[in-house]
């Protein structure tokens, strides 16, 4: 367990009601700086709700959350300056070039134009997209577009990067390629919080996971620790033991 002093994300008793529906209930977890942390659960479990609260896009009904040292309800702008986000939806503009998409996002995070172009060139290089700068975004393959979206969300060098189901719709090669890129980003000190309903993704990529089901966190820990604690040989069995149901991929 991490101490709150070096936590990148600190969530205490978070609850979210939509009318009579409780989407999230008494969620408590920490994410340490530099960690890759996975919110693992089926569709509708409360993963995206949790992420949107941490991104300041939704107000919690009860509980507190701090991201990169700032309260999500009290200091939303300070949080927004320090986090990056790749949503599930497509967030490149297909009518702009790869480079234009990058510098556009830089401007929305208040980078100077010259600094934005320099930063974009470096990030495209790291992502293996160096030769793609002048291509129209609409011609990119699914995997390449995802990498561009990830690179766009790193323009302002966020302390915490949020990825919502980052590999949905990608084939296995593109998925592995993206995992390698996420590890590389993490290796440079960025904390990564991702949601996924792929057990193998959580197993392959995450230092720690929180298993979430019907709005409640059922278990938290490193995939290896959870397997030992639940006397399970795989994360599938852990999930079954913790929630009483299977997670169909």
């Amino acid at each position, binding site marked *: 367990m991490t101490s709150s002093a070096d936590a990148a994300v600190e969530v205490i008793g978070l609850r979210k009601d939509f009318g009579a529906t409780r989407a999230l209930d008494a969620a408590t977890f920490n994410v340490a700086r530099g960690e890759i942390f996975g919110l693992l659960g089926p569709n509708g479990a409360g993963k995206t709700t949790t992420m949107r609260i941490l991104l300041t896009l939704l107000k919690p009904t009860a509980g507190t959350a701090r991201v990169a040292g700032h309260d999500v309800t009290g200091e939303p702008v300070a949080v927004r300056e320090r986090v990056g986000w790749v949503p599930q939806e497509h967030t490149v503009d297909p009518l*702009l070039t790869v480079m*234009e998409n990058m510098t*556009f996002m830089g401007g929305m995070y208040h980078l100077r134009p010259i600094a934005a172009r320099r930063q974009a060139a470096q990030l495209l290089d790291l992502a293996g997209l160096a030769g793609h700068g002048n291509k129209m975004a609409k011609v990119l393959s699914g995997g390449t577009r995802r990498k561009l979206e990830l690179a766009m969300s790193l323009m302002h060098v966020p302390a915490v990067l949020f990825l919502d189901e980052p590999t949905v719709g990608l084939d296995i090669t593109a998925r592995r390629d993206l995992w390698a890129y996420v590890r590389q980003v993490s290796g440079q000190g960025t904390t990564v919080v991702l949601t996924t309903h792929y057990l193998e993704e959580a197993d392959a990529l995450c230092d720690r996971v929180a298993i979430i089901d019907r709005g409640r966190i059922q278990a938290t820990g490193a995939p290896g620790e959870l397997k030992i604690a639940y006397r399970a040989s795989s994360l599938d069995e852990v999930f079954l033991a913790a929630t009483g149901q299977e997670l169909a991929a």
Partner: protein
Amino acid sequence: MSTTNLWREHRVLLGRWLARLRREPLAVLALLAQPMVWLVLFGHLFTKMSVPGGSYLRFMTAGAVVMTTFNACLTGGVELLFDRESGFLVRLLAAPASRVSLVTSRFVYLTALTGVQGVVILVAAWLMGVHYASGIGGVAAGLAVGALFGAGITALSVALAFSLRSHSQFFPLVGFASLPLTFASTALVPLALMPGWMRAVARLNPMTYAVDALRELIMTGWQVAPLVGTVGALLVFDVCCVATATAALRHGMR
């Protein structure tokens, strides 16, 4: 909220709106050709109509300019609806950029775009023999009055973009509103030739105010007192539209 940050946001947002326009050559062509069609088509269709000043083309020029502004601004909010539909907008809401910049950048873009269209029409009409009684300064003032009208219409379009679920609702609604509002104004026909009820509607229509101001400047010259009154009326209209848009934004920017 520093002005440097606002400038940087507007810079990239305007860059994006312009790049999207530039890459749709057909849209650019339509934006420049459509006003000419108004001028040529209606200018010849109604030549026998008796209008103050005698020349229908000269009467019609102000109408063509303001109608063009009206149409561009009325659909001007739809790009924000596209961004809402695709998920792009919510991604931008997670950035520290001001929410207001998304909307104000549309105002700046549409004001510039309709300004260019207006100049194209005025130059074309001049080549077709229309004289401008108040000179270049008067015509520029008339375009500014048109921009005041366009700002209110843009705000309404933005309000619509944040009130509807999809662009498949947006376009029919805008299409439905556009023609009656145009015909129930002085853009094409003078008040004197309208039936009584339509004249009453046209007197309340903000388009009438913008058209009449520009038309006075083209056909008669500077008439300061009525011009000030028109500017005042359009400012009231703008305030109402911006208030509507603000309410819609609060509701829709989630």
